[in-house]
Structure formats: structure tokens, C-alpha cells
């Protein structure tokens, strides 16, 4: 009851673009407070306009610094920007030190920039559990662009491509063999490639390697209508933001010229529903008394986990048929 009133008030604030309301909505969603889901339901109709942009790459590649300069450039172009900066939570304590704001301090007092730090809280894949929801809140608040900085990722932690309309992959020279590591997952994803730290030794070699990789990717996908650009940046000196912003605009135009924008938004919503069903269905099943019994048996090695899982699922199927 108070849940309802509070949620309506926050939802109204979100749609009016009020920062405190957006901040509270994201907190509820991150905490899995039931009021969060109520807010999402109420604001959903106001979403769908924002250009959702992911920035991903290895730890220390300069993602935060790059986000900072990109925000500055996009502000020059009069865009309003929400930033979601994700850092890892400790798998042991659940605690986190979220430090991405340090590199974006110059935007703190800009009323058209909203920066939110989020811990992964157990999620794998480079995002947090609540990233999708936070992006929706920013979208409903009227931000033109939602920039998502993932945690530093390895090869296959690229969930952000399912969430973003455009993903920027950040590489750096001097990693040598690590480029090999990057190629496997990261080079297959992404629409814009940025080679940051171009002031470092090894830039030319890294540029050649990335170029080759993109060439191979293009050959493997003759139907791709978007050719990912490979751009140069020195984020610590604010160099390269203009071409990256141009590329973002070009990719957005490309998506909107076809049905790409709507298709990606739809794909994202479907992925979110699938996630929710996975989480809720699993939680519901594991709450059954039968689950506790089976877990005890598995833990005592009296039954193998495959058979136990099968039995739990079979039991719930019988239940729902019985109820029908």
C-alpha cells in the first residue's frame, strides 16, 4: 500500500526527469526492492527513445577516461547523457569499491549528465543485474544517450552487446599476445573499435593487428551492412572524441535507416524477459520442500545432480498439470 504510493511518486519523478527520483528508482531495482518493479511498470511507456551505447574492453584500457571525454564531446553536441559505470563486487563479501567517477569528475555539476556507479553484485558477463533496468530509468528520464561502461572484460564477457544499440570495443597497444585474447570474443562483437593510448609504443603494430582482425570479420560476414570503423584515441589527452561521436551518430543513423533500432530494442526486451523467467522460475522451484530434500540427497551423494534436477522438474510439471 505504501509501496504503491511511493512507487507512483517516484515514477512520476522519473518521467519528469528528476534526478533524485531516478536515483531512488535505480536503487530499488538494484536492491530488488519490490517498489522497483512497480516503478518500471509505470515508466515503461516512456522508454524507447534513448540511444544505448556500451563501452567495453580489458581492465585499464581507458574505458572510464574515454567515457569522460566522450561525455564532454556529446555535451558539446547538446546531448543529455546518463552514464552507468559498472565495477566488480567482491564475490566473497559482496562489497565493492566503485571508482569510475574519479575520471568523470568534471561532469558532476552538469545538470544534463547523470552518472551512476553500480557493483556487479554477483552477475557475470561484464554487467550488473540491474544494468538493463537502470538504462530504462535513464531512458524514461529523457536522456538522449545512455552510456554503459562495463567492468574490465576478457573474451566472452560481452553481455553488453545484447543490451546496447551500439557497442564500442576499446583496445590498447602493447598488450602483445593479449590482442589474441581480445580477438576471440570482443572482435566478433561491437560496432565501433577504438584503439586507445595511441600515444604508447606499439600503436602501429596494434592498429595493423586490429585492422586484420576486422578484415577477417568482414570476409566472414558478407551480409553485414555496417563496416565497423577502427578509430584512434588518446583519452587522457581528450584526443579522438569527435570521430567517436561521429561514428556513434553514423551507427545510430544506420540502425534507424532500417529496422535495426527497433529490432535491437526488441531483442533486448526479450532477453530481459528470458532472464526474469530464468531467475524467478528457478527461485520458485528451489523453494519447494522437494527441492530441499533433493539437495540434501545430492549433497550426501545419494543421487546424482542430473537425476535430482530432472526429478524436481518432473515433480513441478505434475503439480501444474494437477492444478489445471
Amino acid at each position, binding site marked *: 500500500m505504501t509501496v504503491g504510493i511511493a512507487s507512483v511518486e517516484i515514477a512520476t519523478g522519473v518521467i519528469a526527469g528528476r534526478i533524485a527520483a531516478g536515483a531512488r528508482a535505480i*536503487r530499488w531495482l538494484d536492491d530488488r526492492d519490490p517498489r522497483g518493479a512497480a516503478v518500471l511498470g509505470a515508466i515503461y511507456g516512456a522508454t524507447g527513445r534513448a540511444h544505448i551505447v556500451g563501452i567495453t574492453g580489458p581492465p585499464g584500457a581507458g574505458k572510464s577516461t574515454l567515457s569522460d571525454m566522450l561525455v564532454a564531446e556529446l555535451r558539446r553536441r547538446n546531448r543529455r547523457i546518463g552514464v552507468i559505470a559498472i565495477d566488480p563486487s567482491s564475490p566473497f*563479501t559482496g562489497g565493492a569499491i*566503485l571508482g569510475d567517477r574519479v575520471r568523470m569528475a568534471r561532469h558532476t555539476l552538469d545538470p544534463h549528465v547523470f552518472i551512476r556507479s553500480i557493483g556487479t553484485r554477483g552477475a557475470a558477463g561484464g554487467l550488473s543485474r540491474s544494468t538493463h533496468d537502470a538504462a530504462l530509468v535513464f531512458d524514461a528520464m529523457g536522456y538522449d544517450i545512455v552510456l554503459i561502461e562495463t567492468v574490465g572484460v576478457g573474451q566472452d564477457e560481452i553481455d553488453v552487446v545484447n543490451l546496447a544499440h551500439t557497442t564500442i570495443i576499446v583496445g590498447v597497444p602493447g598488450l602483445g599476445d593479449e590482442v589474441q585474447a581480445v580477438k576471440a570474443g570482443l572482435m566478433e562483437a561491437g560496432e565501433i573499435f577504438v584503439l586507445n593510448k595511441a600515444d604508447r609504443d606499439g600503436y602501429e603494430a596494434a592498429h595493423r593487428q586490429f585492422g586484420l582482425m576486422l578484415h577477417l570479420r568482414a570476409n566472414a560476414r558478407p551480409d553485414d551492412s555496417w563496416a565497423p570503423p577502427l578509430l584512434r584515441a588518446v583519452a587522457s589527452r581528450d584526443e579522438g572524441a569527435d570521430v567517436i561521436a561521429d561514428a556513434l551518430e553514423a551507427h545510430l543513423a544506420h540502425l534507424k535507416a532500417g529496422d535495426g533500432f527497433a529490432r535491437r530494442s526488441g531483442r533486448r526486451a526479450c532477453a530481459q524477459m528470458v532472464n526474469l523467467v530464468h531467475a524467478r522460475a528457478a527461485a520458485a522451484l528451489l523453494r519447494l520442500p522437494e527441492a530441499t530434500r533433493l539437495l540434501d540427497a545430492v549433497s550426501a551423494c545419494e543421487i546424482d545432480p542430473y537425476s535430482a534436477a530432472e526429478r524436481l522438474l518432473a515433480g513441478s510439471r505434475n503439480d501444474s498439470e494437477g492444478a489445471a
Partner: protein
Amino acid sequence: MDTPVERPLRILLAKLGMDTHTVGVTIIAHALREAGMEVIFTGLKQTPEMVAAAAVQEDVDVVGISTLSAGHMRNLPKLARLLREAGAGDKLLLAGGVIPQEDKALLTEAGVHKIFTMGADTREIVAYLRGWWTERQAADAA
């Protein structure tokens, strides 16, 4: 509810002005992380205005300022006022560092809820925050 509510305490840690003493704030950040809290670090050279704005955007429960270079009598009362003006007066405001005994009463009156100075045991700080957080959540639930 289907999924349990999980509410780790969120705290913003900042240093104001030209104060570059970083050892204390770093120790506190790590101690709180080990205690399962989410620490948002804004870095050095912050103004009270920046801290207040960041505290609202991050929707933290606690704002912690580490101050060792004598700016506290100017900065902390201003920060407390800005937080109230931003509708964030319910956040707990903590300070630590080099704060002379004779300044403490004035700071408390100005809205700093608790002060930890040199030699403060991090376990004591963690225990204080946990106690406060338990009470706050109980009050919110009521």
C-alpha cells in the same frame, strides 16, 4: 516476494579541496568493502557542491569525508547544508582525519553526525555503520 531484497549499505567517500592525504581514506574504503558495503569513491579535489550532487545521483545512505588539511570548518557545515537543500538531509554525514577536539561540537551542531579521528579502529567504524544501518532499515520498514 519472489526474490529477496538485498540492500548493501552504499557510502560515498570523498576528499575536499587541496587536501591530498590519501592513506586514511584508502584504508577506510577497503575496510568497508571487506565489510560488504558499496563504496563510491569520487576522488580528490571535490567541492561540497560536487559531493552533494554525487550523493544524490548515487543515492548513497552515507557520505564520508576524509579531511586532514584544516578545511573542515568551512567545508563540512556547507556540505551538510547543501545535502539538506538537495532533499538528502536524511543521509548520514561522517567525517574523519585531523579534526581538533574543540571543533567537534560546532561540526556536530552543523549536521556532521559522527567524527572519527587519528587512530580510529576500522572495526569500530564498521560496527558503528552496521548498527546505524540496521536501525535505519528497521525505521524504514516500520
